[in-house]
């Protein structure tokens, strides 16, 4: 009798030991699995970094640009700004959830809107960051072993290829689809050839080669004048300007690969977060949740949005700080 009643209650549902709705719980378990995906990527980044621990690019030298401030070296500033934007949009999201608990439609609308704006600013910043990274700034030479040789002056300041190399005149026929393989396009060629870089180095006494090997103090090794010429002549294979999935003027190509992959995957999450936020925003505006007398959907999409912020905190640390 009484056990039958208890059994009925226990086994036919209606029991909520975790006191969370099905949707919210499943959002949590999705977030858990997504967190494992991201940690897989970050751990793989750690693996590659430990593998090349004595030759990894220094993030401070790579990400030094801020929009509208050309030619100034401001490491970290812009990423810090992006981090702040994302945390800020997390805050407006919590405020939206809080307003939802009070069934205050007007406030939920405003805060959701601000959250979406924050997300868009972040994605835009990331696109700019990618563009700057792909374009590169100083240029370098890749050796036969796949290492990167960069150029510095005698005080150790970086020197761009364009400052000491003169591009020779070259006549060549460009490959076009109509007169060659129709399914292949010709890629962009670097501005200079390795011979021109060698010539430029020979004619400028104050320029030295810097390898990607790190010294005890954690700085890149600068070669002497004689060594510079010798290494460049013996090993120089290709001129690299900027970064893509094959080559990377900042150092190991893996650095660029992981940068594109991890920040790209995160940016994709932010983008989809913005899309979902917009959908929920319109649902708020047309009063779907007002009629339902529950803003739990805002809370669920909020969980996803905070997760995106949470992941960025780790990406920020492992890509830009450590």
């Amino acid at each position, binding site marked *: 009798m009484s056990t039958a009643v208890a059994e009925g209650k226990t086994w036919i549902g209606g029991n909520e030991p975790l006191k969370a709705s099905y949707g919210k719980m499943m959002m949590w378990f999705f977030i858990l699995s997504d967190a494992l995906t991201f940690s897989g990527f970050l751990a793989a980044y750690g693996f590659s970094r430990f593998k090349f621990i004595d030759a990894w690019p220094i993030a401070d030298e790579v990400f030094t640009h801020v929009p509208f401030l050309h030619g100034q070296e401001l490491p*970290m500033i812009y990423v810090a700004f992006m981090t702040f934007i994302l945390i800020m949009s997390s805050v407006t999201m919590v405020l939206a959830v809080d307003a939802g608990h009070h069934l205050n439609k007007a406030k939920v609308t405003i805060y959701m809107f601000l959250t979406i704006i924050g997300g868009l600013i972040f994605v835009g910043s990331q696109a700019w960051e990618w563009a700057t990274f792909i374009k590169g700034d100083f240029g370098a030479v890749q050796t036969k072993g796949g290492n990167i040789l960069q150029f510095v002056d005698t005080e150790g300041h970086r020197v761009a290829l364009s400052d000491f190399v003169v591009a020779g005149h070259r006549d060549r026929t460009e490959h076009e689809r109509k007169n060659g393989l129709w399914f292949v396009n010709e890629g962009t060629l670097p501005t200079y050839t390795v011979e021109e870089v060698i010539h430029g180095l020979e004619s400028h006494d104050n320029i030295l080669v810097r390898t990607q090997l790190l010294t005890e103090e954690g700085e890149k090794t600068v070669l002497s004048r004689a060594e510079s010429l010798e290494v460049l002549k013996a090993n120089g294979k290709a001129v690299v300007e900027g970064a893509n999935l094959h080559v990377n003027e900042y150092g190991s190509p893996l650095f660029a690969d992981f940068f594109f992959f991890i920040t790209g995957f995160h940016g994709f999450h932010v983008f989809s977060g913005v899309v979902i936020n917009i959908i929920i925003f319109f649902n708020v505006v047309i009063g779907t949740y007002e009629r339902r007398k529950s803003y739990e959907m805002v809370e669920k999409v909020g969980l996803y949005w905070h997760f995106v*912020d949470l992941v960025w*905190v780790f990406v920020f640390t492992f890509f830009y700080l450590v």
Partner: protein
Amino acid sequence: MAHEHKLEIFRGLWKFKSNKQKIWGVLAFLSFITAIEVVLGIYKPEGLMAKFLGMKLLNWIFIILTIVKAYYIAWDFMHLRDETKGLRRAVVWTGVFLILYLVFILLQEGGYVFRVYDEGFIKRDF
């Protein structure tokens, strides 16, 4: 669905009157930590360059500060503080255990591959 919030952080050291105030308080705290990270990242104090357990002291500080930030995002922004213990543990313990395991294995292996290169079995600098 529970609407009550626990309105104190730092184990009751900092109490708030309303949930909204708590949100701003946590924001202030997170911004403060980010600011510390950025300042340390730009100036890189000499004293923190000493090695500790195979990594620079500065890097350990960054990682610990990151975990602190992650804790407050999850606990206060994602309301894990207000969920039942069961849900919290199902999510957090599972994640933490698997991530620590994965990170340990991969970093260990990465260090090993580095030593193989370093001890000259494979030539890389040419």
